[in-house]
């Protein structure tokens, strides 16, 4: 009896398993079908995608090609521009190093680089590593080098009248004075001391400006009175432009001269000719009404402002 039960139970289990197995087989077939369909669809999609990618890649390649071509073209243009610029710079540099004649210097633009050769005619004292030079060439071409950097040792050489230098710098203008700024120099062989040009007849005339910075002379001038603001006293000269200076302070001297009824103001620049020089003492000894000859450099400061280096009382 017991064996029978076991047998029935066993058969029942086998039957269940068989039924389940039969169900699974059906599902597997369906799944296989589904899978096949999916694979086919996926394959189609993949094909489509591949086509798309191919197209995109081709487009991109085309774009990159175009960009590269453009960039190459741009680079080519930039290189050409840079070459042109470099060429111009080299030409400008060469131009700047070219020694200009005085006429060329006059024509040169303001703030342009210039090189000239000339001879030192005078100097203002070396201070703070710089010197100011009055220069002139053999053809009346005159220049003013402002604050030329140099050593004290070189300053002593540059201070020797007649010393020839090649000066490179930038042409500039300050209160009407045309000068060479930010210069570098080379001391050359040769010496020349200019004779002063008599410009008496040009006093008060526009043509005087053509002699800017030149060593000049003025003849037959009469010392005219100078006055201090708020005072009635008349002086032959003033220490500093308004009389505020003194000999001890080595102030500039200012004095008036008269010619043909017109009065002109002259200056003894103390850094050019200090209180221990003959001209400084000579001016301190002037009297109103004295007739004098003067020589000096035709400096410019909002008009002619001669820096006098010699005075002879007639």
């Amino acid at each position, binding site marked *: 009896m017991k064996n029978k039960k076991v047998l029935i139970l066993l058969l029942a289990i086998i039957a269940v398993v068989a039924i389940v197995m039969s169900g699974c087989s059906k599902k597997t077939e369906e799944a296989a079908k589904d899978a096949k369909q999916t694979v086919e669809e996926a394959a189609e999609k993949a094909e489509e995608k591949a086509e798309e990618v191919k197209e995109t890649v081709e487009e991109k390649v085309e774009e990159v090609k175009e960009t590269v071509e453009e960039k190459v073209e741009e680079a080519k243009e930039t290189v050409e521009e840079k070459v042109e610029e470099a060429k111009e710079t080299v030409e400008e540099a060469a131009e700047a190093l070219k020694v200009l004649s005085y006429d060329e210097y006059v024509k040169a633009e303001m*703030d*342009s*680089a210039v090189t000239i050769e000339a001879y030192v005619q005078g100097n203002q004292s070396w201070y*703070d590593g710089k010197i100011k030079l009055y220069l002139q060439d053999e053809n009346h071409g005159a220049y003013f080098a402002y604050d030329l950097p140099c050593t004290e040792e070189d300053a002593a050489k540059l201070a020797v009248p007649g010393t020839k230098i090649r000066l490179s710098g*930038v042409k*500039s203008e*300050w*209160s009407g004075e045309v000068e060479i700024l*930010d210069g570098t120099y080379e001391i050359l062989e040769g010496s020349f001391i200019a004779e002063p040009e008599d410009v008496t007849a040009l006093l008060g005339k526009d043509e005087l400006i053509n002699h800017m910075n030149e060593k000049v002379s003025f003849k037959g001038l009469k010392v005219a009175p100078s006055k*201090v*603001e708020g005072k009635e006293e008349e002086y032959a000269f003033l220490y*500093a*432009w*308004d*009389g*505020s*200076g*003194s000999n*001890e*302070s080595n*102030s500039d001297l200012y004095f008036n001269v008269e010619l043909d009824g017109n009065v002109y103001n002259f200056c003894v620049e103390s850094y050019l000719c200090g209180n221990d020089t003959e001209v400084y003492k000579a001016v301190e000894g002037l009297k109103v009404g004295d007739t004098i000859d003067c020589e000096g450099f035709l400096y410019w400061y*909002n*008009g002619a402002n001669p820096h006098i280096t010699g005075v002879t009382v007639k």
Partner: protein
Amino acid sequence: MKKSMKKRITAIVLLVGLLLTLTACHGKQKSVSFAVPDHFDDTTPIEIVFWAKNDTNRTQVEVYRQAIEGFQKLYPNVTVNMRLYTDYSRIYNDVITNISTDTTPNVCITYPDHIATYLTGADTVTPLDDLMADPRFGLGGSEVRFDAPKQEEIVPEFLQECRIGDRLYAMPYMRSTEALYVNEDYVKALGYELPDVMTWDFIWEVSEKAMEQDENGVFRVNGQKVLIPFIYKSTDNMMISMLKQLNAPYSTDDGEILIFNDTTRSLLEEIFTHGKSRAFSTFAISSYPGNFLNAGQCIFAIDSTAGATWMGSDAPMLDIHKEQVVQFHTKVMPIPQFNPEEPKMISQGPSVCVFSKKNSQEVLASWLFVQYLLTNEIQMGYAETEGYLPVTLKAQNSAEYQDYLGRKGEDNKTHYSIKIEASELLMKHTADTFVTPVFNGSASLRSAAGQLIENTVKGARRKQEMNDAFITKLYTEVESLYRLDQIGKAAEKTEEGDAEKRPLAAESVVLLTLIPCIWAVILLYKLWQKKKTRRND
């Protein structure tokens, strides 16, 4: 136990005290306090040398002479010999030369920046703290023979400017700031109205607008072939003020150089564009702003308030021919600002210092003369020669000075309106003024600040390009020209306590030797204590 703790605390306090003393010694200026004599010797002749600076102004020289005369009357045994300069840099150089030969003047008109350099010499400049506070000879002291101001009667901002570290090395003498002098007619002709507070944007915009020319190169606004719409006299101040207004780095108080930064670069880039268009220039490149302003060739001129007598159509001082002067309405304003809500402008002007001398009576006489320069008569006399402001409240608030201000415009000399307006500008804005840190080398840094602008404008005019290479070259050149790298290194080394560069003073060496010894004693004491405790146990 309590006794031991007390000893330990005492030892630590001693040690901390020693360390503090050492910290105070290191890197300080070499100056010795001046022991104020107990009396003024008015029987022995005393000669003092006074180096003064004037603005090539005869009246200023007269004021100095009056001061000497008045002082000598009160102190007949004292003779004051004055030497006049018209340039601060010449005074500075001469003082430095004379320090090495021990022939400095007794009293000298100067700037705190310069004093910082003088102080690198041993015991050169006399600290004035003790002198100022002395009840007999101090400010307004009982034995001072004239009506001197008391300490509280000196404008505190101006007095503070004379402190270097924790000591007072000078007394302010005159103060000024910078002002913007505007040709208002041209601004209106260009279609603008002046704002209440001038801004940098406004000034650049109007300056560029003014550059319009006709086909013959004549500027439309002034009908002339010459026009520089905006000229700044002191480019040092221009850069310093711009950086200050932007709260941008310049330097530390200790002298670390911070000026070469991105803000500076952006300012230079802006300035470059206006230098290139020629709408902007500087005194060093073109000449005095006042000359162009008065000739109708400039719209915005920035110069010191102490240069006000040269500004305007009716200026009492003229540097150009009278026939070149153009009639226009001049407006005096504070310099342009980045932040109009918080205006900032520089405080400048001469101070006066006393040099140390072996003879204490000479130093005392010098100090008394300095005080005499602060009396109302001298303060007002000098201030009224230009758009200066007296440095004492005593003078500023006096009835005479108020009367002077009230008579503005009565004439074109003493009461020239532009000059008085310039003084009023500083009076109104005293609290808005600033000064830069003072250290050995600060004068060079100031110059470098200006040089950056000068070179930038020159570069623009000379058709250079503004780019990285330009800035790098500019910074390198300026740093090298003014040896700022050395100042920077010195500051760094000071901070690091670099003993190699700056040998320690003898007292510091002694203290440094003492410290390890004290530690050793403490340790030995502790060991001995332990040993004793164990033995007792």
